[in-house]
């Protein structure tokens, strides 16, 4: 009884997804299908945090909804129906436009002129700006990794080069656009937050000063004003090393005893 390995949710920008036309499969009819993107990501499932622009019921009372979701690079569309009850239930409660996180499978459709991709969400949830920003950063990193791999001889990269012959400059530009967009916004927010911190700091410094004066008056300690106010400025954010979570192969597989579902 082998456990089915779960498909990793890949990070691909909408611009790249909407330019994907090639579908591959490993093995038989029932084997999972993968969409190959222009920079060589093979995805069966994606995770994105973007803006739900529209939701529209395909026909009245069909409970089948068409959605459009955007990130800083472009738009993808998708469908949510009764076979995705969790996503459907969540979608009904969300009024666009709204920042949402989406876990979705991918479908490839044959249009009149070309094949196009649509997403089939398994889960949708209202999200926030911070989460969206980090998704853009993470997706940018993953995309750059793939672009660099295009030069190497990896299978997926080779196939992507054969099928799409991607213009690397175009995809670098896409990543740049997305990252610049969130940087601008984050800077604006940091400024605001910074001002709040500054105010707090000033208040804190005043407090400490008055405390010190008190103490000095009592003549017990000759203290220097420090600590709290300083610590506030030192409290810089940690930069997280994404490489850290690549670790060795599964050492264990005791899943059989664990299966609860």
């Amino acid at each position: 009884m082998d456990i089915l390995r779960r498909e990793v949710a890949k990070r691909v920008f909408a611009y790249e997804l909407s330019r994907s036309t090639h579908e591959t499969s490993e093995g038989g009819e029932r084997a999972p299908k993968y969409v190959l993107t222009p920079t060589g990501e093979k995805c069966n499932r994606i995770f994105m945090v973007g803006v739900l622009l529209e939701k529209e019921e395909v026909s009245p009372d069909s409970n089948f909804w068409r959605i459009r979701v955007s990130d800083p690079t472009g738009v993808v569309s998708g469908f949510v129906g009764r076979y995705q009850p969790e996503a459907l239930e969540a979608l009904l409660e969300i009024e666009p436009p709204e920042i949402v996180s989406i876990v979705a499978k991918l479908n490839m459709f044959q249009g009149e002129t070309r094949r196009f991709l649509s997403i089939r969400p398994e889960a949708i949830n209202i999200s926030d700006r911070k989460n969206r920003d980090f998704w853009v950063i993470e997706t940018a990193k993953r995309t750059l990794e793939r672009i660099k791999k295009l030069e190497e001889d990896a299978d997926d990269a080779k196939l992507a080069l054969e099928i799409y012959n991607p213009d690397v400059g175009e995809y670098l530009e896409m990543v740049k656009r997305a990252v610049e967009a969130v940087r601008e916004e984050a800077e604006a927010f940091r400024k605001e937050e910074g001002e709040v911190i500054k105010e707090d700091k000033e208040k804190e410094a005043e407090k400490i000063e008055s405390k010190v004066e008190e103490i000095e008056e009592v003549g017990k300690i000759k203290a220097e004003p420090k600590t709290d106010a300083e610590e506030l400025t030192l409290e810089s954010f940690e930069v997280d090393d994404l490489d850290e979570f690549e670790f060795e192969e599964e050492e264990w597989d005791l899943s059989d005893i664990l299966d609860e579902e």
Partner: protein
Amino acid sequence: MSDGMGDEKISILTERVLSRFKGREIDPKEVSKRLKLLIYEFKVPEEEAVRTVTNYLMKEFDITREEVAESPIRTISEITRAGEWVSVKAKVMQLWDAESPNLSQVGLAGDPTGIIKFVIWAKSRKPEVKEGKSYLFKNVVTDSFRGRMQINVNRNSDIIELDEDISLPPREIELIGALVAIQQNSGFIQRCSLCNRVLKKGVCAVHGKVEGYDDLRIKGVIDDGANYYEVILNQENIKALTGIGIEEAREIASEKLDREFVLAELKKRLLGYYFKIYGSKGSRYFLVRDIEFLSADIVSEANTILSEIDGLVKTAREETAEEGI
């Protein structure tokens, strides 16, 4: 076949058999002779031969298994062969829901050298072990299951709680990823008060319809775009992240007249968000010690990426220029 190699093997096995009968006068030659006969003449597997000779000696000298000297203490990393009687000092790291009624408890135990699965058979009639406590698992049998070593606690074993705290291997890592799925049996659950298994519609897989007690947990999947990790968040984790603890869950459930509502609420607050998690990698599950919502410095991350892109664009331009020449 009695070459040097064979003799050496026999003498090692003889010592192993004798190590369990310390303080008794047993002729090593007799043991070796029986082992040789079984292994070389009758082609019995080594472990079975050892067991057979041991059983013979117990019968012959009228010794019960409990009386036999205890098995050697081994560290987890030293457990590499199946079918050995050993004793292990280890800390119970995680208990799993044992689905089979033949099993009393199943989980992971660790010492500084490694982590191993332990199986306590229901027939062994041992008191239950608790997560986070350290024990001497005395006279347990090593086994290999699907290529992994495990220890089996049987009727002849003993589980003795230790006062000391056995430390675990230092392999805690930090993990950043999005919670992409919350699986079934999550939320405001009920557990069997007899065995702690999660009840399904008030029914325990082993004890049938029982009184349950409330608990909060999330079985979820953390995904970083390259790998995924299955995690279990306990009551404390959930309370720290969402402010919803058992009390709050009860309130929500009674207000909405539906326990499932708690899960819906937890999903709203957690699903699709990025987390930073500290913990260690277990067998199937990533063992969470601490979890928090991710807070990243977007501006500096963005600047790093943008300078990398500038570098890549420059290289691409130079390459094109060269091609032009």
